[in-house]
């Protein structure tokens, strides 16, 4: 086969290139659809697919797994959960879900609004009942809310909420609360209230660790750590490590956590980011407080990722996965600061 006409040669070779590109494009679309379906974070896509196929149980299983793995939970996910659970859920449970949905909608709107007007009544009646709080904790809650609305939830800056409304808001927005003095399932309990707020990557984000009326965190970037002695809880050590800026701080934090005696309580809050220079050893040291890799980042199980908010209360030496932890994903394409809240409440002394 000898082709002498250069134009025909061009046509043949262009044909080969275009055919290769078309094959590539078909493969890309096919693989992309497949990967979208199987990617852990796309649990909603899978759940919808299962529901369409009439596999309601599987859809419910999938969505519940997703809600526990990827945070913050979007209003779209909660709406789907409401739809799927409507028929087989008790009234209180459904109301709680509905409120979570309403608060989630509020938070999503909050990204685009500086001053959000909303009906605070949705925070009045609560399916979630927390114990009576000491005056110190009540004042801490008000300070916590003030800082949170000044820095992050700016759209609610002018909203006056009572302590119980604030608690309801924090709970419905995805906060993790233990109201029986227990630190998760570690088997350890406290004799005081601890409130932790972490704000992930964004301009001006910070962290709060409230204990006995004092805030042991601030608005400087890094990993804030407060170590408490076993009950009667007293402050053992407190520090901040800017793991984003320096690997040296990660090494210092490794050392810091290693020196904590077994049975001591560790309270952790990330401000902005604490993953950039995270070492394997530091991650192991965090796991030794009972935390576990509960979320997925790029297909791998991790405690938290780049720009994530992370708030946790654990006990040195506790079994992996038993501590109290909460996280929120950082999504640079969204104008939303990730917030993670967790609290252990002891309540007022009798």
């Amino acid at each position, binding site marked *: 086969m*000898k082709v002498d006409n250069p134009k025909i*040669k*061009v046509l043949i070779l262009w044909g*080969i290139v275009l055919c290769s*590109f078309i094959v590539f494009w078909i*493969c890309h679309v096919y693989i992309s659809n497949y990967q979208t379906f199987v990617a852990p974070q796309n649990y909603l896509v899978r759940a919808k697919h299962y529901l369409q196929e009439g596999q309601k149980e599987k859809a419910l299983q999938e969505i519940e797994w997703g809600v526990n793995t990827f945070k913050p939970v979007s209003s779209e996910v909660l709406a789907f959960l409401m739809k799927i659970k409507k028929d087989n859920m008790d009234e209180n449970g459904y109301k709680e879900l509905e409120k979570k949905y309403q608060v989630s909608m509020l938070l999503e709107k909050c990204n685009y609004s500086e001053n959000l007007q909303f009906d605070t009544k949705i925070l009045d009646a609560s399916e979630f009942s927390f114990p009576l709080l000491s005056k110190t904790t009540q004042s801490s809650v008000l300070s916590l809310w003030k800082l949170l609305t000044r820095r992050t939830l700016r759209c609610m800056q002018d909203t006056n909420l009572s302590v119980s409304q604030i608690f309801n808001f924090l709970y419905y927005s995805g906060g993790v609360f233990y109201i029986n003095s227990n630190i998760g399932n570690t088997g350890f309990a406290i004799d005081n209230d601890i409130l932790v707020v972490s704000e992930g990557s964004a301009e001006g984000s910070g962290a709060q660790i409230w204990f006995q009326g004092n805030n042991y965190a601030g608005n400087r970037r890094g990993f804030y750590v407060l170590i408490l002695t076993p009950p009667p809880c007293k402050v053992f050590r407190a520090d901040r490590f800017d793991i984003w800026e320096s690997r040296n701080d990660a090494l210092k934090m490794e050392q810091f956590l290693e020196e904590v005696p077994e049975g001591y309580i560790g309270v952790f809050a990330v401000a902005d980011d604490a993953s950039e220079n995270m070492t394997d050893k530091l991650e192991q040291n965090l796991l030794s407080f009972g935390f576990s890799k509960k979320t997925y980042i790029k*297909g*791998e199980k991790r405690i938290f990722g780049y720009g994530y908010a992370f708030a946790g209360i654990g006990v040195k030496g506790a079994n992996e996965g038993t501590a109290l932890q909460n996280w929120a994903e950082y999504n640079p394409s969204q104008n939303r600061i990730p917030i993670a809240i967790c609290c252990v409440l002891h309540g007022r002394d009798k």
Partner: protein
Amino acid sequence: MMKNQDWVYISIGAVSFIATLLFVPIFRWLALKLNVVDMPDQKRKVHKKPIPYLGGLAFYISFLVVCCFIEWFYPQYFDDNLVVIAVVGTFIVLMGLLDDLISIPASKKLIFELFLGILLYYWGFKTVTIAHPLGGVLEVGWLAMIITPLWIVGVMNAINFSDGLDGLASGQVAICSATIFAISYYNGQIFSCLVMSILLGCTLAFLVYNSHPASVFMGDTGALFLGFVLGCATLVEKKKGVTIVALTIPIVVLAVPFLDTFLSFLRRVQRASRGEFFVPDRDHLHHRLLKLGLSQRQVVFSLYYFSICMGFLAFITSLIPSKYTFLVLILVLMLVGMGIILLHFIEGISRKNEEQL
């Protein structure tokens, strides 16, 4: 200890290497069948017998294969920018083929390349900062729309100009890719590492066929595509807070091809009054070194050596604070200037010797 990510890069490089190794003979065979060969001449070309083109098509097809490989096996590392490169790269390859078969005017080629550069800008490939002449970095703002296409076109043509000797362009791209890979790896820039693994695999495999004496050429298709991918990979960075010493490092890495392009540009400006701006000549660095009596292999290896030195310098640049990078640029300019003066000096001695003889 090897991380999971390291295995990802290794496997991507390996797939790219194997794919190119397999595709090059196929396109060589096709080039012979279609009689797409580069005939020797007494002007610019240095080879003595007809050599088939189309080796460059193997880069393109391998790139597409590796993209699918990444998306299938490592979806977490797959980036939509790879698809953008594949789409725009297709236009580059089509243009390169047209130029290889029925040579198109350089001015039209340049306009098309600039157009593709602007297209890339709108698809998110852009540099927002450049090295400040007095240290640190400078926000370029809307000028990014001009700098980005110029950068892409500059890198593409620099690689194309250096494709004058067996194994020169592919070897230089391999050295540049290895350097940028090392810098990106050190800074945790995943996308750049992925693209550089692909380029490294492709070019090393191509060197098996393209080293002196070459059995296949990459043609404009290959050189432009390699330059295009290299240019694109240096423009993408999503990570917050990481100061990319924008374009400084790639400039240092690509110092040899850029120098050649710059000198060629100056010669063309001199000839512009005669209406020969777009006419190629035989005064590229490799031609001049050949004229001094060096063998093809010696010229290629000396330019490799210079590229490796620049690679080390670029790596060091990436480690120092951005406010000092301009010092490295000055050092590079001084080295390059000294090299040009030395070359002129040696050429002068050589001419005198010839006249005496």
